[in-house]
């Protein structure tokens, strides 16, 4: 997708579709899944997701996957397994011999393609340990999930993988500004890694992570990583904006129980394939901002010129900004457009000139053709 015109001098890019890395951010917010449990329990959602992951891995030899859980108290990698966690989960495995045995059984199943089995087992194990270590305290402390953290993890993982996949390109990723440089200075890339992020989201309000999520969106935009959103429950403007800004797919299924269908139809094609497909998109995206004072969505807001906080009314206490406490005045914000002074009627002057040289109008009239 990043092919550059006019630079295919020596290095011919391969004809095969580029490997694609899919980073899935799975929102494991227990509150929200509890709401959904009647239609789509977490277990069946995860099994649908595993089928989808297998489909993604199967559609390309070099395709890769990363799964990140955004939980209530932490965001963690489900796949690949962090090594610090392996020791922990092994310890857990020893205690709960049940889980460990099950996993081994799945691995040894001769009817299963081994890479699929490995991915499945790791994801299930990690998810299991994540859920078992969740305490009531964590649940009561916050009703939302750490999407910002999970997105940041996904992006830095993708950045590193891209770097490893095409080391030629290091210069560009090292210095993001140089990515904008003219094509002459850009090296012809080797097969680049196309990456995308899929957020399976169930939580509603994410306003508390506005800035981190926004930063992630801009980073994704810059790296040309589309963020796809599958919104099973709840509604957030923030994620709509994310998919809109990065050119991703936004789907809010009416029947969440058909999760697998939605995943396969809308989210399986990678960036290369999407160019020749008609992808679903959210028609009108709500771009209205939420004010910082009451979290009210506003059409017309009042913005502090120092820290860009948005307020819903111009009447702030003592005229001080609530975020940066600088003194604000509404009056001075008005741009002083230069007023046009109406042109003076020249009648009087001309009259004077006329009177100074009586009868001069005729000679002037006759002289014009001479000048012309």
């Amino acid at each position: 997708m990043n092919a550059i015109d006019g630079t295919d001098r020596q290095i011919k890019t391969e004809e095969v579709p580029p490997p694609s890395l899919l980073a899935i951010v799975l929102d494991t917010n227990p509150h929200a899944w509890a709401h959904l449990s009647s239609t789509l329990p977490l277990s069946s959602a995860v099994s649908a997701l595993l089928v989808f992951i297998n489909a993604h891995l199967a559609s390309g030899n070099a395709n890769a996957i990363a799964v990140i859980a955004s939980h209530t108290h932490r965001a963690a990698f489900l796949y690949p397994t962090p090594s610090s966690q392996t020791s922990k989960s092994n310890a857990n495995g020893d205690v709960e011999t049940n889980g460990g045995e099950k996993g081994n059984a799945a691995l040894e199943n001769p009817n299963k393609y081994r890479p699929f089995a490995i991915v499945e087992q790791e994801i299930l194990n990690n998810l299991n340990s994540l859920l078992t270590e969740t305490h009531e305290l964590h649940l009561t402390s916050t009703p939302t999930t750490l999407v910002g953290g999970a997105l940041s993890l996904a992006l830095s993982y993708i950045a590193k993988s891209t770097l490893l996949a095409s080391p030629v390109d290091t210069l560009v990723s090292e210095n993001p500004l140089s990515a904008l440089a003219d094509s002459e200075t850009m090296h012809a890339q080797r097969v680049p890694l196309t990456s995308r992020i899929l957020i399976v989201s169930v939580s509603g309000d994410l306003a508390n992570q506005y800035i981190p999520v926004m930063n992630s969106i801009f980073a994704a935009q810059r790296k040309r990583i589309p963020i796809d959103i599958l919104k099973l429950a709840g509604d957030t403007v923030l994620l709509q904006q994310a998919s809109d800004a990065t050119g991703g797919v936004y789907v809010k299924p009416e029947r969440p129980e058909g999760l697998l269908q939605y995943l396969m139809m809308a989210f399986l094609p990678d960036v290369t394939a999407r160019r020749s497909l008609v992808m679903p998109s959210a028609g009108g995206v709500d771009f209205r901002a939420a004010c910082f004072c009451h979290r009210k969505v506003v059409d017309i807001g009042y913005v502090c010129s120092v820290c860009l906080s948005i307020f819903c009314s111009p009447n702030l206490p003592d005229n001080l900004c609530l975020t940066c406490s600088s003194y604000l005045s509404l009056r001075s914000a008005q741009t002083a457009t230069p007023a046009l002074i109406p042109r003076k009627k020249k009648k009087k002057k001309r009259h004077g000139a006329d009177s100074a040289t009586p009868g001069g109008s005729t000679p002037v009239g006759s002289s014009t053709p001479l000048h012309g």
Partner: protein
Amino acid sequence: MADSDYEYMEDASDDDYIGDKVSSSTRAHSGAAGGKKRAQEKPRKLQAWETSRSVQKITESIVQEVEDGTRHMSIREKEEERKRKRLRKDTKPFQRGIIRHVVLVLDLSEAMLEKDMRPNRYITMIKYTQEYVREFFEQNPISQMSVLGMHDGLCIRVSELSGNPADHIAAIQGLRFPRDPEDIPKEPKGSPSLQNALELARATLYHTPSHGTREVIIVFGSLLSLDPGDIHQTIKACVRDRIRVSVIGMSARLKICSEIVTKTNAGDESEYVVATDQELLRELLLATTTPPVVRTPQATAIPAESTAALMMMGFPSRVVEDIPTLCACHGILTTGGYTCSRCSAKVCSLPITCPSCQLTLLLSTHLARSYHHLFPLRNWAEVSWKRAREKGSRECIGCLTVFPEIPDEDGESGGNNGRELNGVDRMQADGDDSEEQKASESSRYECRVCESHFCIDCDMFCHMVLHNCPGCLSRLNPASEAQSSRDVEMTG
């Protein structure tokens, strides 16, 4: 080999430029005792032609490095150090002028026909300024810009003050390839006049609201300024109008330029830089996309109350239409667009000032784009082996790359005391961000808030692109703490 060394040296030199800039602007911000410090700190910088001779010296230092450590390690450290040099040296959250009004003045005098940049200075400048305009509006979406040109003694207006990057880029392109086939392309001609340029820029910026910055960025290739009057009067007028001038020179430093810059930047000369080659020109241009630090207003200046303002802005929703309708901004038929939240006029693109009711219309994402200037991510600290052992970190939090093994304790303590000292230094300097960013011996970099360890690549990515710390955000408590501490710093 020699080639790459040379490149490395150049890298170092432009970083020095930028470094000077940042550190001295902080000094200007703190206000007190600026001048004395600078005098001590600034030894004369080596010019480009002098550096090539010191290649020998660099290779020597590399060789020495190799001798006292293992070969592999020192090369890796060199590489990481080079990468980290690009990081901002100062991440204290300053108040920055987010709403900028910039006049970009291009030199279109005959000095621009010099061929020291390929194919010549003029074409190079045109090419880079287009890129610059795009990046400028990426970074400063709610800012305004105007482009002027110094051509044959006069100052011509290339584009009007507006917030639409496409207009400016088209206008700059139009200098070389006019859209109207009857126009002749503007070739560099005659002498430039700094005074005319400043006067026109001053007039352009005269009506801009007081809460925004007024900046003039001059790309100046020639070695003279042919002025019709007393330029010092113009400089005084610029100071009175709070205009900050920065000059990017191309050939040599000029006294008049440094005087203009010093006077309009409250005694700070770091905004005057000279590009010795085209890469440096590009970097210097792009360095000005970061919003400038706001200085505390002096007593003589305009009262502080008018510098901050509450701006009324509209956040319109996008409309989708089947039948094309007329847009208010261009008067052409378009399908879809945005409707003004106050008067419901339809405009094609954002951000824009509503043509019918003068309300500033933008997306909340435009505002959010500037947040990372206001809340920069603090630089991460180098991790000594001792610290790494304490934390027992084995892999990068962000990308799960495995770190090099922590060596055994006894081998380490006998090894080098200097390293241990480094660790102590780090502890002392914990609160201070502005230290030089160096490579870490253990290839780990630690976020000071959440104490997670990252690899060099994630360090670069997070600070230059993402502006988030994945470690802080992946935990509930450190994240909220970090947020509140940032807020505190912001107010302080």
